[in-house]
């Protein structure tokens, strides 16, 4: 039983109450595993309330091969609080382990202890969490570290990787905090090492990054921040809102160190106004918000479109409408991102599908905003914003420092025309201070000089200009606007997806392929303008097309069937949780069977 596994795919779920150190335990676990060279995807769930008690879950999937999403079933559940963990016992796979407090102090009513709920197919591991913590540290607080020590012992994981992360985590605290937590870890490690293992052997060897590369753990929001920094963001204006707040927080800590500025405005309207204002001056400027904030920003985005002013808006979606479900994930702001606002206000909308994509998309968003003189909306969602993945940052900064078509490109005669008609529909853009670049900017429809004009031919021409210039974004250098995965050529089922759900789509597609179904999946990263040609040729190959989305209306499905007039099969969920791989797989199977019949 204790043989070395070739490859590893093991998902841990640590569940406890706020105050148990659940999220901290998950954090140390994922960092230790990433440090050892494993690939990690992790996602934490905590209570909606900012203060107080409530359920916390930290799920960490550790693999040797690339994985794309969390699994529905965890292999190991660690309970720091049975009352919260009990409803999740059913999520543990067959022969998965359930680790729990063996000696709770409080008297439990019948069924109050987790052993009442462990299925015959699951493996129970009772651990004296409190006792070990108290013996090692004189306090019960380190129970979360105790369970980590036990896990390391049980799964034969190098304890030093954990000790290093523990030391790093508590670096800013008194030295005793690190020593006592390490003592708790070590004590439990010995217990885990010697306990009789009912099943699993040790984990497979991790696949280390290629020479010269270092893998690090990042969240989607963390990657956005890094992308902003590498793209040379100058100014950031933000107003806090879950799940986008951490972008503001991290930039506030980072950007000033590099000469940039961060301002917390009084609301979202100010934030977008200031961003557009900064963009107007030639700065690389951005803001970040969620659906309710984007609704407030819609008006000013229209100004950005009309004034052809670069700006970047990061939108991390949560359940809506209105205040909605602030701490639950959803993909229901596609409509407002693409269409929100008055008039024909087309802008660029991008949606990365994983943490690495967040980095690239953030940086490229600044290039595009500048190159095509437009607002760019980058859509994330809570699941992607908060989920951790191991990523290998590029050795060289991949972003162009400036893509502005400046006054040097002005070829006209006479007075400068800010909105001059050009072949690529992008006009030379003067910024304040450019000599000879004085011009008018207005939200009114305007002439090439920027002067208000409601002449019918002018409005026709300017509307066309604002739309046509964006088409070039479909071939923006070094950026993947959409990509096909899986089987080449004709397939039974094709899956079209966007945003964070694409991870689950890929896993479902691989499972379907393994079950003998010919299928492929296409991620659509650029949602406006839509890569119609690529989508059409993908759909031409597919017997049936499935569009799984975390929204009720089928917003991408509507976009595709509306723009392309092609029927698709929708799969929509608004549970507040990520889409389940199994749900997508079941739909793929159904469609494949229907086709075979």
């Amino acid at each position, binding site marked *: *039983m204790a043989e070395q596994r070739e490859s590893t795919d093991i998902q841990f779920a640590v569940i406890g109450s706020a105050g148990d150190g659940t999220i901290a335990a998950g954090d140390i676990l994922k960092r230790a595993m990433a440090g050892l060279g494993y690939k990690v995807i992790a996602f934490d769930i905590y209570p909606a309330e900012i203060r107080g008690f409530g359920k916390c879950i930290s799920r960490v999937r550790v693999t040797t091969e690339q994985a794309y999403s969390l699994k529905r079933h965890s292999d190991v559940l660690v309970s720091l609080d049975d009352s919260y963990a009990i409803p999740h016992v059913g999520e543990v796979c067959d022969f998965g382990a359930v680790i729990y*407090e*063996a*000696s*709770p*102090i*409080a*008297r*439990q*009513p*019948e*069924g*109050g*202890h987790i*052993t*009442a709920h*462990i299925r*015959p*197919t699951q*493996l*129970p*591991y*009772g651990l004296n969490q409190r006792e070990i913590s108290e013996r090692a540290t004189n306090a019960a607080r380190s129970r979360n570290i105790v369970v980590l020590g036990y896990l390391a012992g049980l799964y034969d994981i190098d304890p030093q990787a954990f000790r290093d992360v523990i030391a790093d985590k508590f670096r800013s605290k008194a030295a005793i905090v690190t020593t006592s937590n390490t003592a708790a870890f070590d004590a439990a490690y010995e217990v885990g090492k010697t306990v*009789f293992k*009912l099943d699993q052997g040790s984990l497979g060897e991790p696949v280390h990054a290629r020479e010269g590369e270092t893998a690090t753990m990042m969240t989607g929001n963390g990657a956005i921040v890094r992308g902003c920094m590498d793209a040379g963001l100058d100014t950031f204006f933000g107003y806090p809102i879950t799940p986008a707040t951490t972008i503001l927080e991290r930039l506030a800590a980072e950007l000033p160190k590099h000469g940039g500025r961060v301002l917390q405005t009084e609301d979202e309207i100010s934030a977008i106004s200031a961003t557009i204002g900064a963009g107007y001056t030639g700065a690389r400027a951005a803001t970040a918000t969620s659906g309710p904030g984007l609704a407030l920003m819609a008006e000013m985005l229209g100004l950005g479109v009309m004034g052809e002013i670069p700006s970047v808006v990061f939108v991390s979606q949560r359940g809506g409408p209105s205040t909605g479900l602030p701490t639950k994930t959803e993909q229901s702001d596609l409509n407002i991102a693409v269409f929100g606002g008055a008039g024909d206000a087309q802008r660029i909308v991008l949606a990365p599908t994983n943490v690495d994509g967040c980095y690239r998309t953030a940086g490229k968003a600044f290039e595009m905003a500048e190159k095509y003189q437009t607002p760019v909306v980058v859509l994330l969602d809570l699941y992607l914003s908060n989920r951790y993945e191991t990523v290998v940052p590029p050795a060289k900064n991949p972003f162009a420092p400036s893509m502005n078509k400046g006054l040097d490109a002005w070829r006209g005669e006479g007075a400068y025309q800010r909105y001059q008609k050009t072949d690529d529909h992008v006009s030379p853009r003067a910024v304040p201070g450019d000599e000879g670049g004085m011009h008018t900017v207005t939200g009114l429809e305007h002439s090439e000089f920027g002067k208000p004009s409601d002449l019918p031919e002018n409005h026709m021409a300017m509307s066309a200009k604002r739309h046509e210039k964006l088409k070039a974004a479909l071939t923006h250098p070094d950026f993947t606007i959409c990509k096909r995965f899986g089987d080449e050529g004709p397939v039974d089922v094709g899956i079209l997806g966007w945003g964070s759900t694409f991870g689950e789509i890929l896993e479902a597609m691989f499972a379907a392929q393994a079950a003998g179904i010919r299928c492929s999946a296409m991620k659509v990263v650029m949602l406006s303008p839509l890569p119609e040609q690529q989508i059409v040729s993908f759909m031409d190959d597919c017997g049936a097309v499935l569009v799984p989305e975390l929204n009720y209306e089928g917003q991408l499905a509507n976009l595709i069937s509306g723009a392309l007039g092609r029927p698709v099969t929708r799969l929509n969920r608004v549970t507040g949780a990520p889409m389940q791989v199994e749900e997508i797989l079941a739909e793929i199977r159904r469609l494949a069977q229907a086709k075979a019949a």
Partner: protein
Amino acid sequence: MAEPTHNVIIGNGSAGNGAAITLRERDPDSRITIITMGSLPFYNRYDLPRVFRGCDDWREILVHPLAYYDDNRITLRRNSRVTDVDGRSRSITFAHNEVMHYDQLLVCAGGRGYLPEELSDYYGLMHGFHSFEAAITTRRALPEGGTVVMLGGDMIGLDLARTLIDVGYRVALLANEYTFWPHRIDADERGGFIAALEHMGIEVVDGMRPVAVEEGAAGTPARRVVFDDGGSLDGDVVMPFYGLVPTAEFMLRSGVDIERGLLVDPQLHTTDPHIWAAGDVCQIWSAADNEYRFYYGWTNVRQMGEVAARNVTGTNEPFEGVDDERLHIGKDGHILSPFWEH
């Protein structure tokens, strides 16, 4: 709607499982819970010698497929040690501090290996065979072709000895009055049976009293058994086999009568109207012997579980034990026991 009757069985061995399925057959609507201290579902203890033939996976010795519990709506509570039973409130307390109510309780808690007081300090230096986990741990401690020193013997140990010798280990047996437990051997037969053991390949050391177990010195096997006369015997592992004693401590405050085991009438009813007992944990009243007595062996134990369950569900039938305690020597000169015929 009235709550279904909660039938609780403490013990996940032959008696407890025989009782559970009988209860299910006779009372389809009741709630049935089996409680065990162990972490595994019901497996065949008689199959444990297979561990020394290379069986590494407990799934290979399970008595039922894992779906059995769901199929029969039996809740299995593992890693759940009962510390107390209160007959008046009809409640059970677990070591993990949970309290469970029962309507009818069947105690099938079996027995555990007896260890003479004088050796109890050395428990940590000995290896066990009472569970799958213990058997695996023992095997891992044994080098290839290594030596097992068995203290006592008993039919459980001798069964293991047969396998150990068959797969190439050495077995040195310190024979004493427990060697043929639970068989009763007349003094004049003993020499013949000891000779049969030697014929089976067991190295018998008779008449020596072990008083200590020590770690072996560097360069010698891992353990040394010291005798009262100062002599000693080396081995890689030392395993005590002194028969079984009932596991009944957690019943001390239950209100039922206990001698060594739980005292039951032939219908396996204890002195509490809501508590029955079956298997190695109970002493059954025998009118013929005019005493409470134990019935060992797998046929008796399973039957006890079934009889107790039938009586829980309304019959009043006595347990009729198989009392075949004779030991034989077969044509090949090896010992034969009904205990081993499973």
